């Protein structure tokens, strides 16, 4: 039996990341603790290299390779670029935090890069199998990352919960995949799409498959009622890991929905739209309502994530190109906000002190006005205040569902963003109006300061001139 080599060129960024990660694993073994910054540098270099490779091969037209299991298209490439970008920011923000906690180990970067690889595979998946592989690679890296601080009981508990629930959800996803395969005879998304379009929603196996797929996907997204793991994990994991979980994987999750629901099961849109409506409404409601009661800011942001996922689902369930573009724009903007928000949290933490309560942000303006400003921009953007990026994100998804006639859902979304605005603004109030409870100076290295500033300003820039990103999203989804 002869082995036909597929075209490896489109997969080059993935191969590069894989090779570099393996290299880093080996190099790291021979490094002493004080040389660990080499590992860090190599990890950043990997992301940079992958970014360059992706950028120079930016897809003009979709190309499939690996026997149809992999696709390189503009949507994937754009999402990947943002995955590299946010992951690089995550690595940077985490560096000092990890160092102060004796967690500055090769494993963090190795698992992080494997996670990035998993996301890349998800983003470029063109078959249910690749989707699953990427998802599991990411999930397994995340399970391990959550438990990276082995001395922390709360982190171990969170990791355990995440793992058990995540495995169950993976099982359901796999179950769904196998049913789709049973009904269509293929895992290739194109073939699945054609077959589904031919037989329609009458086939019960197909419907069951869809149900289980949506259950599995919702779990990975953290949509209510499959969100239970999210707050515990966000709170329990070391902040550097929460930062990672809370950012780039959302981009991959968006791709996941696009690939499976839109590209693969587009013909069943009527069925999954109903499910997503329920998920979105519940997520927006539960996320925003529960967030109000949180005193822990990581937990609050966890619920805020849930509500943002609800909003992102709105764009997808609209089922129109505009809606998809809106959802993509939303996801990218959200990820930029989340990285920034957790970045500020991580910068406020010191050795032996975790800034995880909202009270820890009191009087930040007196301690570091610039960081306070960045935090205000991020919070307001999350709340959807005009002239900031978050506003257009909300606006676009709302508009897209109004255009398909789901006015009540749009109104529900608005109502819950009003409720959401309350707790974001509470943070702003803490930052600006309250007296500081501690006066330790905030230590930041120069590169961190530059990046977090750029992060905050980016939201303002997108807010003032969102056209560029919107156009990218719209054109990326066109081909």
């Amino acid at each position, binding site marked *: *039996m002869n082995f036909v080599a597929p075209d490896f060129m489109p997969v080059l960024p993935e191969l590069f990341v894989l090779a570099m990660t393996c290299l880093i694993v080996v190099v790291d073994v021979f490094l002493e603790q004080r040389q660990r910054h080499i590992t860090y540098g190599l990890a950043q270099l990997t992301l940079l290299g992958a970014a360059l490779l992706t950028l120079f091969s930016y897809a003009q037209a979709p190309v499939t390779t690996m026997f149809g299991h992999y696709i390189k298209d503009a949507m994937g490439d754009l999402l990947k670029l943002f995955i590299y970008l946010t992951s690089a920011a995550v690595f940077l923000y985490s560096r000092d935090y990890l160092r102060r906690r004796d967690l500055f180990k090769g494993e963090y970067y190795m698992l992080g890069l494997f996670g990035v690889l998993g996301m890349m595979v998800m983003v470029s998946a063109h078959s249910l199998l690749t989707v699953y592989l990427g998802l599991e690679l990411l999930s397994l890296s995340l399970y391990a990352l959550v438990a990276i601080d082995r001395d922390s009981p709360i982190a171990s508990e969170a990791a355990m919960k995440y793992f058990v629930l995540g495995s169950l959800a993976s099982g359901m996803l796999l179950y769904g995949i196998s049913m789709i395969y049973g009904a269509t005879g293929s895992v290739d998304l194109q073939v699945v799409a054609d077959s589904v379009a031919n037989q329609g929603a009458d086939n019960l196996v197909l419907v*069951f498959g869809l149900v289980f797929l949506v*259950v599995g996907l919702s779990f990975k997204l953290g949509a209510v009622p499959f969100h239970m793991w999210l707050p515990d994990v966000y709170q329990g994991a070391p902040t550097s890991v929460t930062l990672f979980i809370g950012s780039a994987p959302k981009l991959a999750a968006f791709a996941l929905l696009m690939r499976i629901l839109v590209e693969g099961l587009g013909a069943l849109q009527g069925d999954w739209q109903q499910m997503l409506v329920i998920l979105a409404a519940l997520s927006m409601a539960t996320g925003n309502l*529960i967030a109000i*009661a949180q005193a822990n800011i990581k937990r609050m942001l966890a619920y805020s994530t849930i509500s943002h996922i609800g909003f992102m689902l709105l764009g997808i369930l609209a089922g129109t190109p505009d809606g998809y573009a809106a959802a993509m724009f939303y996801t990218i903007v959200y990820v930029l906000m989340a990285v920034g928000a957790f970045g500020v949290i991580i910068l406020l933490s010191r050795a032996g002190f975790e800034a995880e309560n909202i009270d820890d942000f009191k009087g930040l303006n007196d301690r570091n006005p610039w960081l306070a400003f960045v935090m205000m921009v991020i919070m307001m953007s999350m709340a*959807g205040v005009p002239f900031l990026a978050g506003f257009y994100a909300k606006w676009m998804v709302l508009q897209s569902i*109004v255009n398909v006639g789901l006015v009540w859902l*749009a109104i529900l979304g608005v109502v819950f963003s009003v409720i959401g605005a309350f707790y974001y603004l509470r943070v702003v109030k803490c930052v600006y109006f309250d007296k500081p409870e501690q006066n330790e100076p905030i230590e930041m290295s120069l590169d961190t300061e530059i990046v977090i500033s750029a992060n905050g300003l980016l939201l303002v820039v997108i807010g003032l001139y969102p056209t560029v990103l919107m156009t990218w999203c719209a054109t990326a989804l066109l081909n």
Partner: protein
Amino acid sequence: MLLFIALIPLLGALLPLWAGGRRGRDVSVWTTAAVTAASLALLLWLSPVVFDGVVLQANWPWLPQLGLNFTFRLDGLALLFGLLITGIGLLVILYARYYLAERDDLGRFYALLLLFMGAMLGMVLADNLLLLLLFWELTSLSSFLLIGYWHSRADARQGARMALTVTAAGGLALLAGFLLLGHIAGSFELSTVLAAGETVKNHPGYPVMLMLILLGAFTKSAQFPFHFWLPHAMAAPTPVSAYLHSATMVKAGVFLLARLFPVLADTDLWFYLVGGTGLITLLFAAYAALFQHDLKGLLAYSTISHLGLITLLLGLSTPLAVVAGVFHIINHAVFKASLFMAAGIIDHETGCRDMRKLNGLFKYIPWTATLAMTAAAAMAGVPLLNGFLSKEMFFAQTVYQAAAGGEVHWLLPLLATVAGIFSVAYSARFIHDVFFNGEPINLPRLPHEPPPYLRAPVEVLVAICLLVGIAPAYTVGPLLAIAATSVVGGPLPPYSLAIWHGFNLPLLMSSLALIGGALMYWQRRRLFRLGDRYPPPDGKALFERGLNLGIAATRRLTEGLENGSLQRYLALLIGVALVAGVAGAWQGGELTGDQPLPPVDLLSLLAALLLVLTTGLTMLWHRQRLTAIILLGGVGLIVVLAFIRFSSPDLALTQLTVEVVTTVLLLLALRYLPSDALPESMPSRRLRDAGLAILAGIGVAALTWGGLTRPLQPELAEYFLATSLPGGGGANVVNVILVDFRGFDTLGEATVLVIAALGITALLTGGFPLPIRSSPRVVSIEERWPLLLRMGARPLLALTLLLAAYIFLRGHHLPGGGFIAGLMTALALATQYLAGDFRWTTAQLNLDYQRLMGGGLALIGFTGLVSALFGYPFLTSAFTHAHLPIFGDFEIASAMAFDLGVYLVVVGAVMRILLELGQANAEENGWKP
């Protein structure tokens, strides 16, 4: 040009910040004033064209794909508001310079003020709904920062937050409303929307949309029941109150009503919602104003009341009511701004705003008192002042409505008169309590006349009050006309702006109001007692109670939903999946497919029953680990039977060996678990879990049924069956797939197996803590290693190895292969360790398993490389036949070497893991490696 009117203050907001930092206070005043004056000059320069009835428009594309463009329009309404904003803005800038203390940061104040001014101007000039909304939100934000300007004060922070919460919430409602409006009208451009009045009003979405938009407008304009934020926003510095809460921001709501008047107004719903809200607000706030002891609180409630009046007028929807409404917007802005400024002067000079202490100030500050009294008289609607005119028009409108009959009759003029009485009464209180009524009580300091520049803005405004009041037609006439025209969207009916219309009903109502108000004030003590007993409801307390209730409710929700229990999460996950599955099934479609099932034979049935029985027992005894593991092994063995029954001997063989090895592994790993059983969970929870398990089981069974009754996808199986022998040189498809078709995968899997074994080694060598047990029982050799087992095991090794070799060799054609052979070998070796002394066996066998695995992996890799050497792709296979006695004819394929690699890896890895686990066991018994 239009763009710059709003842009100048927005960009100019940076100037005072820059100036305030290093230069003196005056520089920042002058820059701010210059910026404002520039905007005002631009407006005035453009105004002649507007007075000619032209609507100026300007358009810069910004986000065309969102329907959001920088389009501005300057019509009468926009011009009126623009002049108010910039004109009063200039006065406020001057006033604030002298009002704010030395230590206050003027630069920041002016920057915020300009930001707000720019936002307001942008809002009134916007010709695009979205743009309007953006500026609308910006006014909320900048006013939040302005109200909280003295952010060290708790009441300022609270007031600011409440104002922001309410207005921002309204803003988001507005967003939803605009979304709908734009959707209905087909565009977000105001010019298009304004022309689409009929379409919009007949659209089924009109009521929802109207309510959302009104929600936005009412929160901003502090209409009942959203009025409560305004009195608490009085914690702001007075210049802010004078600017935001009299002339500009609170007018944004009525501006919006006026702006969208042609599209939304003149329906029953509009009449009842807008008119009703206006009427309630007018009455309620006028009543509440009377009981305020805080000077600014009185003014705040009076503002709310006057806003209600304007809203009511707009709600009446007749062109003349609109004229009256617009007229009152101007008048109210002028007299209320001057009143706020006067109140600020009093506060500034005395350090007190409580009307129970402020008495008899007239003799200390006669000139300011005169000004304030004139303005208050305007507020009360005394003739010769501007307030009288618009109030007269308002009364006339209510009478007209009553005369027109219909749903409203005599009630409207009556209530209007009542509101007028209250209004006169609180104005009288403002005048009499503060400036007369005996001597001041315990004031922090006795006042004297303020610096002339602090008073100058008040003088200007009061002069306007008088001028407009005496000669309305010559002063505001034209402006009022064009503004009202652009609101109505058509020609206005004739009206007269004279003071004297002869004796008529409105005049009677005015007189009644004046007399009644005076009477009411005269009887105020009795009224105050009444007010103390039945205080007007405090919106703030309600707001906060609501807030706390909400937070408490969400906290309960959190506890119910997120108690951190994994069991509950799992139950929820499975439960929801079940519901989703059932919901999916509900949609219809046939569960049973058309594939007939094979007949059930007795043996299979028995095996199935046994399977159910063992599984059930495992569940039942899962706390006794040893029993549970053995039972689990039993389940596996029945599965082996099932494989045999359905004629897949290869799988059966694999399953058999794997089952045995895993059972042994599990038994060894058992040592690492604490021996005491876990506490049982509550019966209720067990019931829940049992229910869920049964339901989920039924669900999965149904799905399996659905799957079994559908035809298989035969393509894959057929492909492999067809190509196995010609392509891979073997008849055993499973083995050929493993070592040939998917050789690459097997290479990967073998590597993973090696890594896992090494990982376990690494984990356990570090000294994995065993749970502490009671001291090991001393046992004799005979009891530990029974003789029979020891003796039996040795020949068994030879036999098993032989069997393994056989299985291995025939593997390519018949059931068998390297994987199974490897497991068998490992088992045989493990038996030796189990049967004999660990140390002795280790010494006897003398095998380095690590090397074994390494060698196996290398062999696999090498096989692949050989084919590469011959110029074929990696892992291409080649085969030939060979004949050995006894074994018979068998295949020598390059895959054979590959399979040998697999064999070695399996043996090495399994033994490595077994030994590591067993070693700890042995160490406990005093054995040292």
